[in-house]
């Protein structure tokens, strides 16, 4: 029987992390050299962790599926990275950032973790600046900030619309420095397919070399998963096409609990679906809402060109519904409001599934040059994809699957329920509750990697200094390798007629319709049934060309899709279990007469952590969320 212990340290909120850090055990430099750590994933969390652990003197092995660690999907984050610097003298503080995150997450995140994320945010900005990340600056030469969705202070540091790229390249350069020093060994083009647990502790992973097809065993004293989220479960999403959940899912199947799988953020500002062949939805940064105004026509099914719709005929529905926050309401609120207008028949474009994001007033007021400076690359990107010039007419946007707040359950040490298996960044569940505020994912990923995991993993490893190098010829490695080989054989032997992508697309549609922005009990049950049927069909009729040896992209895809069915089902089960609306999880049955989310704190102020017991019957464990420092309130952006 698993007992969840969040290991939140006692004491006042502001002192928890600093007191706890001083109490953690250390490992002396000579012993660090003898200890090995595996890090899977090279995004902001993984690359930051690997470089920091390398600097400390551990032997680190890093894995990514891309050809280079610089390509992880953190690279695509656009808008910015939050920190509680209060450089703008506008009343910001660590406490304020903490409160904004807890409130933004609709009171479903763990207080102590959120406070710590806010606390280390300042160090993240300092470190990135020191290693050469070219954040935007003002004419006085100091760092510039902007305000971002859902908050009233200006705390978001940015590098044009490419903040994620610049931060990732910062972490990547730190990683490269350690690789050149020999503390870190890099293994690119590897898919992690299983985790190896020896005597109850995570001791290694099984990977497939994506070039040779070889199944490899890698051992270590501890394993860190920084493998990102599972948003590609929707097929069309803002994520990279290679982003997948298989590593985290294999950990779940080996006993790590999976928390709040139904908490998936639907980002309000993505370029809408344009055609049936589309493989991806491109995000337009939320920062655009600082200067852009969102509207639809007041006339139903209005097919006129947006520039021909007069000011009086425009419905600035966010400003109308939420006068205090206007266009800057949090993502979940903005997404649902867009869906509400489109469902009511007021949507823009041929499909009626989009709304306008208009810059004409901002351009008139600030001049085109100022807008270009802030968002130049985004405007260019929009024009490339759609052929429309957003300086001349409004953009069309629609919500898209984006970020997963859910993930592997971890305690305050960022360790999963498998000792020695850690999860950081988007792969864990801990900091964003039921909805993530803009610009806090880069913040959390870098914070986890640079400033949290180096302390907590050292405490764990202080017990391992006498453990010699883990041999990979142990039975547990053989068993895990056999599991992987059998799964690959099974998928190759189906030999049906349909591509893995075609199944992925159908799965995405089911989940988008029944477990997307708005859910209800009946739909979720229906969704579950449909996924079950589709999964059965997949195992009867998927076609994977080629062999297991050598580079085989179809095999890679099929293995990932096979896991997405199971994740999709767990999402539906979790959403069905949570009889309330909170953050991104909106159940139709639980809303106020005005259509706002209705939480049920009495019954659902808990983290739903699921234990694998076969793919259709997971067991629920609850971690009660105790709010000692903030008072639970209905979120109000009016």
């Amino acid at each position, binding site marked *: 029987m698993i007992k969840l212990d969040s290991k939140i340290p006692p004491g006042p909120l502001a002192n928890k992390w600093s007191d706890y850090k001083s109490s953690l055990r250390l490992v002396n430099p000579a012993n660090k050299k003898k200890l090995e750590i595996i890090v899977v994933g090279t995004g902001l969390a993984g690359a930051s962790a690997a470089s920091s652990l390398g600097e400390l003197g551990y032997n680190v092995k890093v894995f990514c599926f891309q050809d280079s660690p610089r*390509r992880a*999907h953190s690279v*695509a984050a656009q808008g910015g990275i939050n920190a509680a610097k209060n450089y703008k003298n506008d009343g910001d503080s660590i406490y304020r950032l903490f409160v904004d995150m807890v409130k933004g997450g609709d009171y479903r995140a763990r207080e102590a973790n959120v406070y710590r994320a806010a606390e280390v945010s300042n160090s993240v900005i*300092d470190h990135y600046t020191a290693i050469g990340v070219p954040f935007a600056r003002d004419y006085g030469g100091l*760092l510039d900030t902007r305000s971002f969705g859902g908050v009233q202070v200006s705390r978001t540091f940015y590098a*044009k619309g490419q903040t994620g790229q*610049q931060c990732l390249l910062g972490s990547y350069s730190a990683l490269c420095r350690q*690789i050149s020093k020999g503390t870190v060994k890099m293994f690119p083009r590897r898919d992690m397919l299983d985790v190896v647990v020896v005597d109850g502790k995570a001791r290694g992973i099984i990977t497939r070399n994506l070039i040779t097809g070889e199944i490899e065993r890698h051992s270590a004293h501890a394993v860190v998963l920084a493998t990102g989220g599972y948003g590609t479960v929707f097929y069309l999403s803002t994520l990279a*096409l290679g982003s997948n959940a298989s590593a985290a899912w294999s950990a779940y199947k080996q006993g790590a609990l999976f928390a709040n799988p139904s908490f998936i953020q639907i980002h309000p500002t993505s370029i809408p679906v344009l055609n049936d062949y589309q493989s991806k939805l491109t995000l337009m940064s939320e920062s655009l809402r600082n200067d852009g105004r969102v509207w639809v026509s007041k006339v139903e099914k209005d097919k006129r060109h947006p520039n021909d719709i007069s000011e009086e005929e425009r419905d600035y529905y966010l400003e109308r519904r939420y006068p205090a926050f206007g266009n800057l309401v949090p993502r979940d609120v903005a997404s649902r409001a867009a869906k509400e207008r489109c469902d009511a028949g007021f949507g823009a474009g041929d499909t009626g599934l989009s709304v306008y994001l208009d810059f004409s007033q901002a351009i008139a007021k600030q001049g085109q040059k100022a807008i270009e400076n802030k968002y130049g690359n985004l405007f260019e990107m929009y024009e490339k994809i759609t052929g429309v010039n957003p300086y001349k007419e409004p953009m069309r946007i629609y919500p898209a699957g984006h970020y997963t707040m859910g993930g592997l359950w971890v305690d305050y040490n960022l360790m999963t329920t498998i000792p020695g298996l850690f999860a950081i960044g988007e792969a864990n569940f801990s900091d964003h509750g039921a909805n993530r505020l803009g610009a806090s994912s880069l913040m959390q990923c870098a914070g986890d990697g640079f400033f949290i995991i180096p302390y907590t993993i050292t405490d764990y490893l202080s017990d391992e200094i006498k453990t010699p190098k883990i041999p990979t010829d142990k039975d547990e490695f053989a068993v895990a390798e056999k599991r992987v080989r059998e799964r690959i054989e099974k998928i190759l032997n189906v030999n049906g007629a349909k*591509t893995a992508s075609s199944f992925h697309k159908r799965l995405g549609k089911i989940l988008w319709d029944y477990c997307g922005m708005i859910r209800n009990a009946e739909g979720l049950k229906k969704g579950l049934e449909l996924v079950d049927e589709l999964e059965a069909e997949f195992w009867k009729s998927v076609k994977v060309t080629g062999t297991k040896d050598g580079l085989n992209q179809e095999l890679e895809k099929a293995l990932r899709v096979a896991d997405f069915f199971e994740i999709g089902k767990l999402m539906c089960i979790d959403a069905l279990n949570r009889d309330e609306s909170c953050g991104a999880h909106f159940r139709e049955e639980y809303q106020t007469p005005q259509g706002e989310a209705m939480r049920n704190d009495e019954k659902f102020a808990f983290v739903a952590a699921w234990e694998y017991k076969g793919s259709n019957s997971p067991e629920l464990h609850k971690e009660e969320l105790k709010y000692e420092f903030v008072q639970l309130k209905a979120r109000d952006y009016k």
Partner: protein
Amino acid sequence: MDIKLKIWRQKDAADKGKFETYDLKEVSPEMSFLEMMDYLNSKLISEGKEPVAFDHDCREGICGSCGIYINGRPHGPERGTTTCELRMRFFKNNETIVVEPWRSRAFPVIKDLIVDRTSLDEIIKAGGFISVDTGSAKDANCIPIPKNNSDKAFDAAVCVGCGACVAACKNSSAMLFVAAKVAQMGLLPQGKVEASIRVQKMVEKMDELGFGFCSNILACEYDCPKHVSSEFIAKMNRDFFSSKVCKQKVI
């Protein structure tokens, strides 16, 4: 629209490789180039043939994974565009499109259109970083940096590491890639400390890996999907020269 594709097929690094021709009908002008390739692959799979392998990931022009030589140009005919951002509306009905991998001694072909670009990582490992350990940084606003310098550093930092500059160059030179990183770090006060050592080490590594010399044709700048300017190459030459003259030895 209907198109004819002439695609380089190569089983693995040891295979000699050859062009294969495919007719593809009913291509939508709205498709991205890679969505067209997905469409081709789905047809090939349904005919029981092996799909064309190509690198891709973010599909929004920022990760630098994709890189296909299209009609004799890296990333195709449109300037300032990665392969994944390229749309089929830029091609004509019944056009024959020639599709090849990057060609450079430093980028060996792995399969079909996929090449090995780890040599670019090797160059960064040689010195493309600022040697500051986690935890030792002072407050970010301790060092004011003139906005112009900082903006210039950003202009250099936008490189996505796709390798188009190498593919475009008749000498397969990586000068633009290396110069962009040298400039980004060298323009910032944080990176000045190691500037001369950095430029020497990175240039040395670039030469060692089999990239060619620069002969100032500037095809790299023309075909760079991120508009990285060749003025950074001039800057790097200057930095390299002065680092040699000043006799600051590589430790």
